């Protein structure tokens, strides 16, 4: 009789999870490769405006970033609420831009210097005064290629 009983057990065979780590590792490697670690910590509010006639910026290594905006909440006690410029990891003054551009140029290979672009990552609540100052400084050091970094979207989202 026991011969028949054995066959009757209707349990589903356990699914082997031995390949689960492989799948997870595959995903892991994908994200490890795709990750770009931010090399600067933002100290300013950086809510970019929207535009829909945008061009893509490739060649990440040929871009110099200049950030501007109000200091973030935790810096407001020391730096106030007035819009500031951030270069690399530090708050900077308009007069520091020239030195910053020169340093960036010196760190690149000489033949690539003419292709350097300055990306202006400016918060949308900032006044044009500070942007105008940045542009004047850039003209003084002959860094004429600029890009106003924006998010892709309709400009009606800029109002609020």
């Amino acid at each position, binding site marked *: 009789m026991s011969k028949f009983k054995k066959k009757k057990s209707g349990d589903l065979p356990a699914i082997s*999870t*031995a390949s*689960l*780590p492989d799948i*997870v*590792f595959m*995903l*892991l490697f994908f*994200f*490890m490769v*795709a*990750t*770009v*670690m*931010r090399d600067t910590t933002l100290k300013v509010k950086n809510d970019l*405006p*929207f*535009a*829909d*006639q*945008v*061009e*893509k*910026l490739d060649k*990440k290594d040929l*871009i110099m970033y200049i950030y501007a905006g109000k200091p973030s909440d935790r810096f407001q006690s020391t730096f106030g609420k007035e819009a500031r410029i951030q270069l690399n990891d530090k708050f900077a003054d308009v007069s520091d831009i020239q030195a910053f551009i020169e340093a960036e140029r010196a760190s690149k290979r000489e033949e690539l210097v003419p292709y350097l*672009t300055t*990306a202006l990552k*400016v*918060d*949308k*609540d*900032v*006044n*044009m*005064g500070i*942007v*105008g100052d940045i*542009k*004047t400084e*850039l*003209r*003084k050091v*002959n860094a*004429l*290629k*600029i*890009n*106003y*970094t*924006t*998010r*892709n979207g309709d*400009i009606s989202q*800029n*109002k609020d």
Partner: protein
Amino acid sequence: MAKRAAPEVNAGSMADIAFLLLIFFLVTTTIETDTGLSRKLPPIDDSQVEPPVIKQKNIFTVLINKNDQLLVEDELMELKDLRKAAVEFLDNGGGAGEDACGYCKGKKDPKSSDNPDKAIISLKNERETSYAMYISVQNELVAAYNELRNRRAQELFGRPFHEMELAYDDSRSPEFKSEKLKEKIEKIKLEYPQKLSEVQ
């Protein structure tokens, strides 16, 4: 003594470790979106050469005041009408003789611009203007140029201008860096040059 087999290491927690790492990378990943409006600043000009005289009718002045209001050609305008006004100005083609514009479809108003090559948009802002408004205006003006270029490219080559530029820059497309396409792009750019000047 009989050889004892090494005890097997339990690999059951491997998945947990991998998940932990996976979640870390998922959280830190920022697929960076670097898109924007590219512009070229004018070089500082300290030479004493007199700037050429430009006829008033060939200049389209746009002023953004500190309350983010638009003053276009000395009249108040809403942002949504700016693109159309700019297209009308650029595409006017009111010139005669040497300055005539064969491909313009505008009203040929003698009081507006002669041809797209002569037409200059002059953008002026105040220090208190908000950056968001400035970008919106820049975007609309670039859009006006793009609209005209697309229209012209469609007429000449049966495809929009932005698609031609994409095909030129995309390494996967058959026309990547092709000389022929470059010629076409240059032709369109010559017919509708972007002359956007900013008053300092």
